[in-house]
């Protein structure tokens, strides 16, 4: 079979790092093959993908050399961040940008743009503001503008890492359709949807060497332990988790929060309405609903970040009298970086405690405990920005809950996290819940709702429309054969 990509003895080193990222790496990909590159974060999969496309060294200058390097002429590359791959404000203009680069005559453009949007299943008017699209739609638009280049080969660099379940599904469905007859090379951490599409898996080790390379199903079953240990989302990961999970304790504690005819405003408009609700200690409430329904707004209203009216009692007193609120409620945002206010992990944890003027000895003790609990001991003197994605997330949660708050508000805290980090985070939260905290968490992940939540709030069009108690599902033990 003809080769689409051939790399022989590639050596590559990032300036400033100690060793070589790749030492004599050889890999070739045949035309029409669908290949998945798997491996721990930092092993160089994305870098390799950029070398294959020629982004390295053409756009990003990294010292490298190879004995032989054959690259495709016509290729398309979809990146991870939906907000960082467009240069134009409207969907049609973005696709047109790719067409312009190829000097496609102007009169052909509108027809081609419509066809490309249809091809990726985007039923939007071509002149739609990209800012109003959901993450999944943005990634499909990225795919459409890449298809405008008429590529023979598609490079996909974790295109769904920052998407919710629904967006992830839609993107992979589209890739399956448009990828027919093309060579497709994928880097991805969430492989549930990819596994039945690829025919070959290349598994990398921590040192950037190829551990396994072969037929997808075979590699997946032979190396499942390695894949699981790297925190990759694979089919059945939750079932495996259930086998190790411990039994959970449940008890409903005292009343923490009471809402009645509660409204939250953005500007002059009421954006969220809660007719009536009570939250007790020891509850885990999953806040679910479509994109833009008002889930985050509800959390913002509860944290009093926006103007509210109606009844809102916290710990038996009116919310206005519970100032400052951060002593009672911990809030965790989607992007951990926004919340960091100091220059080291240690300082970050100490910040809220110092603010309250607690004695230094007590602060020291709390920090030491939290560093251990959240597995950040080795990183304690690093700058928060230098941490890995998972570590940043753990730190932002640890720093938020340090003051012993009773109510946790979390806005999709598992977003963009790998399986290992997600499980670790959920278990930490669970431990706090068992000690009498109440958790209110926006999530799209049904698996989490089913396993951890004791109650579900459904938000629709800016209102709490359903409040249901969930059956507490005990972890199924090994012989139980948990189904998904």
């Amino acid at each position, binding site marked *: 079979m003809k080769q689409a990509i051939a790399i022989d003895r590639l050596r590559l080193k990032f300036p400033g790092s100690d060793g070589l990222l790749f030492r004599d790496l050889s890999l070739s990909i045949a035309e029409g093959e669908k290949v998945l590159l798997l491996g721990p974060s930092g092993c160089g999969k994305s870098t390799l993908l950029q070398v294959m496309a020629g982004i390295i060294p053409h756009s990003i200058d990294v010292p490298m050399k190879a004995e032989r390097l054959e690259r495709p002429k016509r290729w398309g590359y979809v990146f991870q*961040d939906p907000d960082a791959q467009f240069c134009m404000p409207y969907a049609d203009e973005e696709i047109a940008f790719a067409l312009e680069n*190829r000097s496609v005559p102007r009169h052909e*453009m509108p027809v081609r743009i419509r066809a490309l949007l249809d091809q990726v299943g985007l039923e939007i008017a071509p002149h739609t503001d990209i800012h109003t699209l959901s993450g999944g739609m943005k990634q499909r638009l990225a795919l459409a503008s890449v298809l405008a280049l008429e590529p023979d080969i598609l490079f996909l660099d974790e295109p769904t890492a920052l998407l919710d379940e629904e967006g992830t599904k839609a993107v992979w469905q589209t890739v399956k359709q448009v990828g027919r007859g093309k060579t497709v090379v994928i880097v991805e951490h969430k492989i549930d949807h990819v596994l039945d599409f690829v025919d070959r898996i290349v598994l990398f080790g921590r040192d950037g060497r190829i551990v396994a390379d072969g037929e997808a199903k075979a590699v997946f079953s032979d190396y499942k332990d390695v894949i699981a240990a790297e925190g990759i989302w694979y089919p059945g990961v939750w079932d495996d988790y259930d086998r190790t999970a411990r039994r959970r304790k449940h008890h409903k504690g005292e009343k923490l929060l009471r809402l009645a005819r509660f409204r939250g405003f953005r500007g002059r408009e009421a954006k969220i309405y809660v007719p009536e609700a009570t939250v007790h200690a020891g509850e885990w409430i999953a806040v679910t609903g479509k994109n833009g329904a008002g889930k985050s707004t509800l959390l913002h209203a509860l944290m009093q970040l926006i103007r509210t009216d109606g009844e809102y009692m916290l710990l038996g007193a009116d919310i206005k009298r519970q100032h400052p609120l951060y002593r009672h409620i911990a809030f965790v945002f989607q992007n951990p970086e926004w919340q960091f*206010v100091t220059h080291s992990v240690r300082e970050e944890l100490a910040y809220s405690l110092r603010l309250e003027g607690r004695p230094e000895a007590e602060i020291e003790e709390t920090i030491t405990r939290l560093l251990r609990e959240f597995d950040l001991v080795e990183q304690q003197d690093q700058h928060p920005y230098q941490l890995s994605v998972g570590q940043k997330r753990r730190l932002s949660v640890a720093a938020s809950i340090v003051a012993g708050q009773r109510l946790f508000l979390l806005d999709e805290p598992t977003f963009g996290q790998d399986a290992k980090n997600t499980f670790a985070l959920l278990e930490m939260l669970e431990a706090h819940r068992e000690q009498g905290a109440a958790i209110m968490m926006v999530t799209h992940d049904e698996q989490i709702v089913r396993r951890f939540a004791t109650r579900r709030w459904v938000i629709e069009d800016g209102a709490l429309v359903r409040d249901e108690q969930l059956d507490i599902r005990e972890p199924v033990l090994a012989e139980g054969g948990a189904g998904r």
Partner: protein
Amino acid sequence: MKWEVRCRETWLHETNPSLKLIVLVVLFFAVLFIHNPNVLINVSLALFVLFCFGTGYPANVLFWLFLPFFLVFVSTASSMMMFGEGTTTWVRWGLIHITAESFWRGVHIGFRALALGLLGLIFSLTTRPVPLFYSLMQQLKLKPKYAYSFLAAVRLLPIMLEEFQTIRYALTVRGVPNKGGLSKVKRYAIPLLSQSIRRAQRIAVAMEAKQFSGSGGRTFYYEIGFGKYDIWLVALFAALMFAAYYVGVHYPYISISDVR
């Protein structure tokens, strides 16, 4: 977040952005060389009328946009009036010394600032970034490299605005006191800049990955040409300047024809 104000498209939106830019730059320099306050007052009034009725924005938006320029008008005019030099004293009170010369010079400078501000407002309110840069590439041969970089940057602005809001929330949540000049700037600037720089770098790579070379041949999705409104534009501004000059010279409000 809602940050964009919807407006009605007027004929000024339809004009060629490059031509509009040139016309307004020419006017900009013309205003600098008007020394007759009567003429300048007429020009400012005419521009004000155009600003109110030609840009297509609702009155409340126009009011808030105009307010800072009005304050500039008041402050430049008053400081010139009170501290300028002159021989015909009207009021002397400590440091403040108002003379006939300084008074009219102040009025003149105030109107000049106002006229320049209005020119800028009229241009920016009736020009969308995408047609502007397409026109600059087509009519004024701006390199695509610069044009698309600017457009990409324009796209980042609303994202940054949203992030700014979130960081404000995040800091409130952490109990960060809402004071402290430099440290406060740092708290906002570092996360905002670190995100934006990384995003800009990624966008640049993504643009090159779409075979954007920054030079060489390309076609254009929008062909920006000239139309009847462009003739209107030139004719209107020519007539406006002429009328302002004629009325200012022959029917003056004040008897001073040169403030120098």
